[in-house]
């Protein structure tokens, strides 16, 4: 499976990219505490609502998709058989 093969991008690059990216995440998270002028939805009153939604939305999506795969996945020649 693909995940066991070596990564094509050199490791130091990945390290730098990830550090830079998670720093950016920290900055935009901190900015949430300085307030937002426009709020229309009750959920928007919650602190860090958008980061929460982004992270846990994707987590839910990936876990649910893994569950879906158990139900719907078939071999590549499924429709060619018979």
């Amino acid at each position, binding site marked *: *499976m*693909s*995940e066991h*093969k*070596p*990564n*094509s*991008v050199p490791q130091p690059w990945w390290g730098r990219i*990830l550090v830079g*990216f*998670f720093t*950016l*995440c920290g900055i*935009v*998270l901190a*900015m*949430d505490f300085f307030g*937002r*002028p*426009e*709020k*229309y*939805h*009750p*959920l928007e009153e919650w602190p*860090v609502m*958008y*980061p*929460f*939604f*982004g*992270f*846990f*939305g*994707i*987590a*839910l*999506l*990936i876990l*649910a*998709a*893994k569950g*879906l*795969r158990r*139900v*719907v*996945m*078939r*071999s*590549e020649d*499924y*429709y060619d058989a018979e």
Partner: protein
Amino acid sequence: MPSSIPPFLVFFVGALLVPFLRDAPRLRAVWLVLIPVVGALNVWGLQEGFELQVQLLGYTLTPVRADRLSLLFGYLFHLGAFIAIIYSLHLKKGDSPTVQHTSAVVYAGSALGAVFAGDFITLFVFWELLAISSVFLIWTRRTPAAISAGMRYLLVHVVSGVTLLAGAMVHAHQTGSLDFGPMGLEGLAAWLVFLAVGVKAAFPLAHSWLIDAYPEGTPTGTVFLSAFTTKVAVYALARGFAGEEVLIYIGAFMACFPIFYAVIENDLRRTLSYSMMNQIGFMVCGIGIGTTLAVNGAVAHAFNDVLFKGLLFMSMGAVMYMTGKTKASELGGLYKTMPWTTALCVVGALSISAVPLFNAFVSKSMIMSALLYEHHYWIWPVMLFASAGVVEHAGIKIPYFAFFAHDSGIRTREPPRNMLVAMGIGAAMCILIGVQPHLLYGLLPGEVDYHAYSYTHILTQIQLLCFAIAAVAAFHLWKIYPAEIPSVNLDVDWVYRRAAGKVTGFVGSVVGAADGALRTAFLGAVRRTMRGAFRASGPRGVLARTWPAGSMVLWVSILLSAFLLFQLF
């Protein structure tokens, strides 16, 4: 200069000459590029409010109706055709260039005919032409899978066309008019038209033609396919059903349901097909809200979708053209040999993810804002979830698995220059509209009083995107991200590709068994009757014996005695 030439005519006349240029590839290339350029100049000259009408069997037909909505789609289809034609200029003899180019130009012309149609009959004609011309872009791949998928695609779209015609007939009977305008969802006619449009828009349960057929198209054909069919349906929904609440829920479901499949799909062009359905969900939702902002947002998003989805399909088409592969499990590490294609694909990924300064940011936000302004508080979080989902499957998965991820060992080179130029134009347009949204806003059907680049909107979108990416990164690092596995995933098409066959086989076997049993029973009864008759009247049967005259006299005496006795008593 004002023009009154029907926009589709430029393309149809252009297509007529293409087969005669098969031995002059350079001349053919110039001719092909000229078609959308001349067409665009013609549409630019069409005055808003222009109508071309003809009388037919007592009905007034309007083959051309130019208003802001049809003109916007007119500009879009010319731009889409221009980019896709440039992308396909390299086609050589083995790629069936004449068939592909001719059908592509007729297809683009049919899309133009449909969006400028002011009546149902014209719409129906172009609706069917769209299906018939586009199927060649699938069939010319010439694999058994493409042939079958093309046949299913054609069948579904012909059924959609017939349903549209049925709706048109009922509408004409009820109203005495064939004009295609706002309908609302009341009465049989409206529902039939809605159903026909829904099939073409890939509504849930009617969507599998898109997932089935688009990935089977040729590398260049799928770029054309992604630009026209579903956008014509979005146009028809905006024209006929804006403000119908049911569209909000259909759109929300459309935006969410395919992203689960997109996560686990191995074929990257099929992943993009699911992504297309997801993006159409946003448009359908916007049309359902029905306010000026929402409908503007929906058609602006359709405009942008042709650009960023076209760009992504072009980049995957380039990968397919150069490597012969589109499966994530077989790709990876291509950034080393295809750096330009990688960069252009990343622009498409950033655009579809609605990153600020890219085009989806300025159109999707209109729909999301309209949801909030109209107090659709339950739908808004659902669409926010779908927005985050886009980042995963189209923003990260497509470029990551094709160009980075594990090194597949494939060493290739950049695609032909015309492909890179087409992708470059698409990418430039994505950035231009993202940076200068007023260029698009000025073309929208309704007046626009919207500012995408507010502090709150920029911040919240970056937060959503960053943490969605962080979740994907974390799942990769924790090794719980679903691996790319060579497989197929069952979808609604399983019903007619597998279940229908099994059900038919089962019903056939039951009917066959019942028929057999009935025949056996009937033949048994006939055989028994024949045997009895034979016993009675055969050579030794009781009825076939030669009776002596004495016994006959005896029986006559008995009968006469019995008669006498009855008479006496």
